[in-house]
């Protein structure tokens, strides 16, 4: 890996809500084809960082470059164009409740392209299959699906335009351990098959062990350290120590070690 391509570059980012500073002078790089896990305590601004990178939240200062587009001062046309190149999976899927799963998947397709309905239907079927949903889930409404299925359907919509980068906001929150492990596996499989770059905000230590190439720890208003899980285990910062050496972390490490065997 000599020449790695930067997909996301964040420099000197500052976010403030009223008197409360969430990020101060935050730097972060994400490389093409990697799975980056972002961890941090509650209120450390993980979700805010995600929302700022995808342009849902206006930063106070700093620069963000996503796929070569300036996400803070970019012109509207460029922003519209870059939106076709990344997908976002919100916490509970954020599916449009008045549309079926297939229609949800077709929303971005119809917005950006003029395609015949039979091809649209076929694309929707392919995405539904891709995320491991049964074919009959396609014409169901979100309210008729379980939490895990809604997440998969949300992922299918995020993948509708075949994005290069996918953002996940706590993808395994609210799933049972079996469902969470299956979802991790799905993310990994799709990431490898489609060559995706994944930016994942998570709390799930199992996910970190199972699928993340690199981890970024958010604390003290900036990215404290980044690196592989091994780097994290060597880190001496008290919060990182507690996070990666706590009882839950040990359990996750044991599981991961057993999986490798």
């Amino acid at each position: 890996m000599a020449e790695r391509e930067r997909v996301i570059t964040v420099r000197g980012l500052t976010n403030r809500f009223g008197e409360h500073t969430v990020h101060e002078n935050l730097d972060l790089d994400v490389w093409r084809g990697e799975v980056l896990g972002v961890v941090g305590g509650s209120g450390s601004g993980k979700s805010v960082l995600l929302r700022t990178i995808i342009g849902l939240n206006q930063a106070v200062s700093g620069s963000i470059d996503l796929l070569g587009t300036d996400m803070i001062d970019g012109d509207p046309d460029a922003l519209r164009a870059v939106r076709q190149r990344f997908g976002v999976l919100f916490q509970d899927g954020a599916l449009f409740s008045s549309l079926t799963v297939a229609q949800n998947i077709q929303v971005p397709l119809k917005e950006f392209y003029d395609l015949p309905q039979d091809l649209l239907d076929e694309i929707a079927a392919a995405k539904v299959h891709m995320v491991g949903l049964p074919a009959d889930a396609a014409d169901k409404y979100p309210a008729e699906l379980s939490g895990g299925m809604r997440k998969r359907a949300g992922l299918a919509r995020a993948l509708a335009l075949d994005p290069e980068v996918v953002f996940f906001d706590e993808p395994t929150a609210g799933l049972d351990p079996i469902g969470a492990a299956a979802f991790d596996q799905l993310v990994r499989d799709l990431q490898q098959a489609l060559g995706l770059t994944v930016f994942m905000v998570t709390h799930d230590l199992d996910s970190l062990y199972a699928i993340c190439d690199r981890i970024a720890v958010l604390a003290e208003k900036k990215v404290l350290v980044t690196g592989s899980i091994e780097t994290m285990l060597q880190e001496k910062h008290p919060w990182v120590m507690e996070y990666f050496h706590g009882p839950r972390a040990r359990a996750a490490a044991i599981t991961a070690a057993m999986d490798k065997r």
Partner: protein
Amino acid sequence: MADGRLQAERDGTALRLRLTGDWTLTHAAALLSRLGGLATAGLASEHVTGGGQRRAVLDTTGLGRLDTAGAILLVRLYRQVADQGFEIDWPQARREHRALFDYVGGAGEAITVWPPSGSGLIGMIEYLGWLTMFFVREARRFTAFIGQVTETAMLTALRPGRMRFTSMVHHMEETGLKALPIVGLLSFLIGMVMAYQGASQLQKFGAEIFVVDLIGISVLRELGVLLTAILIAGRSGSAFTAQIGTMKVNEEIAAMRTLGLDPVVVLVLPRMFALMLTLPVLTFFADVMGLCGGALMAWNTLGIDPYLFFSRLQEVIVPRTFIVGMVKAPVFAALIALVGCYEGLRVKRDAESVGRLTTRSVVQSIFLVILFDALFSIMFNILKV
């Protein structure tokens, strides 16, 4: 980004299908027309009659990006050729192309996006049947709900400590006190309109004084209570549905049940009793304002001064007229509150149903208010009241 292209050519005895450029969503529409226009079947048979063997080679060395849409088109091409009995080779397939091809090829048939619905006459009859069953079911459920509320009300009457009086007073303020200005203003205006329209007709017969009878009877017996009820159905019935519906979306109702609280006691009864107490008061207020509006207009256009107006009113209006209007108020109030709460409790866990059921709650309660008003008229007629 190069345009996606497909070329077919003879390569020895095999048919070489050469894919070049980007096969992506952007080019899908153009590719699709070419894929149809290519008439793969004709091309394949031409190849065979020209002495070729039933063998095809997919050449993707020049293929750039491939996305799901492109992969679907590729799968379509593959199947079209395979259906002709061709053996297909795909040498030098790039790993990511192959992976996507397998993903897409494994998907089932295209799915129906719109739930199937009958068309024409049969569809209409089906819909009519569905609608009838829907109303029957709805009426049954609503009746059951009325029963449940009545039962709970009885039980609560035995143990008044369970009644939420604070909540009730709050809803009395919301639905009663805060509705006074709008109810008063509207009744005043309607009284004026009635007087004005009545006066212009009655003047033709020289029977101006009968305008007092007209306004007195119509406002006290019908308009005061009906107008107030319709206004409150739109104002408070909808609020009940939206409040309870939002709680349902947040699973607050479920939480309430697990804590041993009965939603009927906590949510429905305070609202229903609050409305049953305030609607008669509002109706009385509406009656007074309607008469004042009428009196003002009678004075203005007919020269009937207020003293004459009200002494004539006392002569012609028996207390019964006023009471007939007032007894309807608690009944209408109960209907509005029950419909509002019932629809609120029927909200499902999605935002859309809150809006839909709020609309339905207002329409239903106004419908029921007018229906019951008609039933009251029939009943009073039979009883000769």
